[in-house]
């Protein structure tokens, strides 16, 4: 019987079984940032422990960093304190660090892949649930809590229970205007926000195989929103070509040798999965959320649900969500006025996202009532976009082009919604208050859908706004 990638990577990194029945798993790569890691260094200090494998840990700052003026000290004292804490901890423990201005700073899940730190077959962890992003390379990539960050710093291992594996095959061809973001929003809509609890997702099928690495990252990124602990795509030629020539990837013969090893991690043809879900690409439309969880999503042509047609707790939740979002039952989501448009985050803040959008917004203008911001995911994305003059296209269309960071994805920096503003967002969470105002509202969608909404001033169908039918996406 063949093995899945999950099983192979697990076996390779398994240290031993613990007394309580859990397993001790070695972490090939540990990424840290300023919000969930400083406390772990404090915990180490309390116990007089050192970082066991400092050469397997890399640090950057992303969550709290302002995206306008990044000069130190930051205007926000607490943000300054957190980053100082990280500065000192990495210096003390000899951890490689990509601070602002280094040319490599950015959202941790953008930075790992673009430097080539993320490589197939690795176990990867980070104190951030979107670590699943790295699964795009064929890794077991886990979001962990701060006590686990402590565990990994002290031992480079985690105590884990094995997961089951569900293969999600997306088969067919995406229609024009349908993107990777729509694929994952559709998967979450179909399987629910807790459908993945206890599972790792293997994304497969022709649609996934035909995706670029950046598209695969978008899909894997939101695995956690579907309840899965992690998600991955089997490494293939697309993966190897993406990695070739990256800063931290071996070169020459060593690269070829690495590819041979990487290739072997892919799930065997006869691998057996605990569960399988098949999705027909024809069923996937541009998808947007209407509620307060990523699973509360509909395609752009649908109307928001009517709680009167539901029962029990579900009725209650739909009523609450509609009330929070100021939406009426049965109204079409298309046409909902927006105040803010945000393109960025570890889901959709990569070069290809900005390239794609730039192609459509060139010569168009953001509606006067909308504040539109574009935030590159990293300094590398920023400089590559600038080299192609994309920032000018965005600025001329009426977007603010900001410095890299998480920005309005979770609004720990000054980029926040005000009051009950409603935001068309390319990020990954539409939770109550997520974008910085306790009454702020979020509609998740793909970057081109955000661009369409920005231009129209309301939720719109990118296929109509940008005349996409007939073209291939």
């Amino acid at each position, binding site marked *: 019987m063949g093995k899945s990638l999950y099983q192979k990577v697990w076996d390779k990194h398994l240290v031993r079984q*613990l007394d309580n029945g859990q397993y001790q798993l*070695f972490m090939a790569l540990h990424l840290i940032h300023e919000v969930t890691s400083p406390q772990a260094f404090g915990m180490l200090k309390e116990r007089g422990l050192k970082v066991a494998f400092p050469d397997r840990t890399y640090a950057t700052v992303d969550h709290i960093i302002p995206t306008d003026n990044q000069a130190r000290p930051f205007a926000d004292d607490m943000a300054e304190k957190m980053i100082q804490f990280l500065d000192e901890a990495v210096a003390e423990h000899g951890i490689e660090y990509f601070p602002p201005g280094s040319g490599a700073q950015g959202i941790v899940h953008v930075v790992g892949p673009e430097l080539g730190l993320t490589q197939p077959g690795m176990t990867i962890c980070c*104190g951030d649930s979107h670590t699943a992003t790295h699964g795009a390379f064929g890794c077991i990539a886990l979001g962990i809590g701060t006590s686990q960050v402590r565990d990994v710093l002290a*031992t480079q291992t985690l105590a884990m*229970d094995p997961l089951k594996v569900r293969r999600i095959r997306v088969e067919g061809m995406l229609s024009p205007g349908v993107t990777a973001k729509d694929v994952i929003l559709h998967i979450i809509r179909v399987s629910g926000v807790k459908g993945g609890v206890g599972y790792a997702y293997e994304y497969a099928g022709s649609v996934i195989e035909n995706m670029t690495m950046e598209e695969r990252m978008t899909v894997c990124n939101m695995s956690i929103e579907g*309840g899965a602990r992690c998600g991955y795509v089997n490494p293939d030629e697309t993966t190897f070509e993406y990695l070739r020539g990256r800063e931290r990837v071996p070169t020459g013969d060593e690269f070829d040798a690495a590819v041979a090893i990487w290739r072997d991690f892919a799930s065997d043809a006869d691998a057996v999965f605990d569960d399988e879900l098949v999705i027909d690409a024809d069923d996937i439309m541009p998808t947007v959320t209407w509620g307060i969880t990523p699973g509360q999503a509909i395609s752009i042509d649908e109307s928001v649900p009517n709680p009167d047609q539901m029962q029990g707790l579900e009725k209650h939740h739909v009523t609450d969500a509609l009330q929070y979002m100021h939406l009426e039952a049965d109204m079409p989501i298309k046409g909902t006025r927006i105040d803010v448009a945000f393109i960025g985050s570890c889901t959709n803040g990569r070069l290809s996202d900005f390239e794609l959008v730039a192609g459509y917004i060139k010569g168009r203008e953001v509606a006067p009532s909308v504040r539109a911001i574009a935030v590159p995911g990293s300094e590398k994305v920023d400089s590559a976009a600038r080299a192609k003059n994309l920032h000018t296209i965005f600025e001329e269309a009426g977007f603010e082009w900001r410095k890299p960071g998480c920005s309005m994805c979770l609004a720990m920096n000054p980029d926040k919604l005000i009051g009950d503003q409603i935001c068309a967002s390319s990020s990954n*969470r539409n939770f109550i208050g997520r974008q910085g105002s306790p009454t702020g509202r979020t509609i998740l969608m793909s970057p081109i859908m955000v661009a369409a909404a920005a231009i129209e001033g309301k939720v719109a169908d990118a296929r109509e706004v940008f005349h996409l039918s007939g073209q291939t996406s």
Partner: protein
Amino acid sequence: MSPAARPVPTSHPVITKLLGTGIYVQGNDIDTDRIIPARFLKCVTFDELGPALFYDQRFTETGDSKHHLLDAPCHKGAEILIADNNFGCGSSREHAPQAIHKFGIKAIIAGSFAEIFQGNCTTLGIPCLVMAEEARKEIAKTVLDTPDAELLIDIEKMQVTCANNVYSVMMKASSRQAFMAGTYDPLEHLLDGMEDIRRKARRLGYA
């Protein structure tokens, strides 16, 4: 693959029984942003997080009380949180379980939990117990009607006793064992494997 042969020292108190009053926080998919809004994540220790638990549910933007159940005098000192499905979904931030912990909650009973959240709670010594909907509704009602009703959680028997009724609960086997052995914080045990870890690192042969 084989379990460590020697006994591992227990560094934390065993948790087999918990007695306390309960409080019901209604709603499925209560996410970590609701448990602790992102603006409270600006901290370098977790010490001050307790008062920020469910902040936006409890207080208006100007800081006035919304008279949330958590602030009701009759629920003061409640130690057992009762919740619905998919509690703790969203972020891996330990700030959420830490806020619950620092607020004084000792255990959570819910229909289901998000995985990372549950793991984080376990490490902090907060048992996350899964209870079927009917039973949970009954307990929630009891707690709402008689806030001083005590709940007795028995980790060994996997039972909760409340108002003379006994309800069964579920928990991951490894977590249950860890509470009973006082090994829910895994660090000591992980450190114990340091030799094996170094050997594994040498043999990885890549990266």
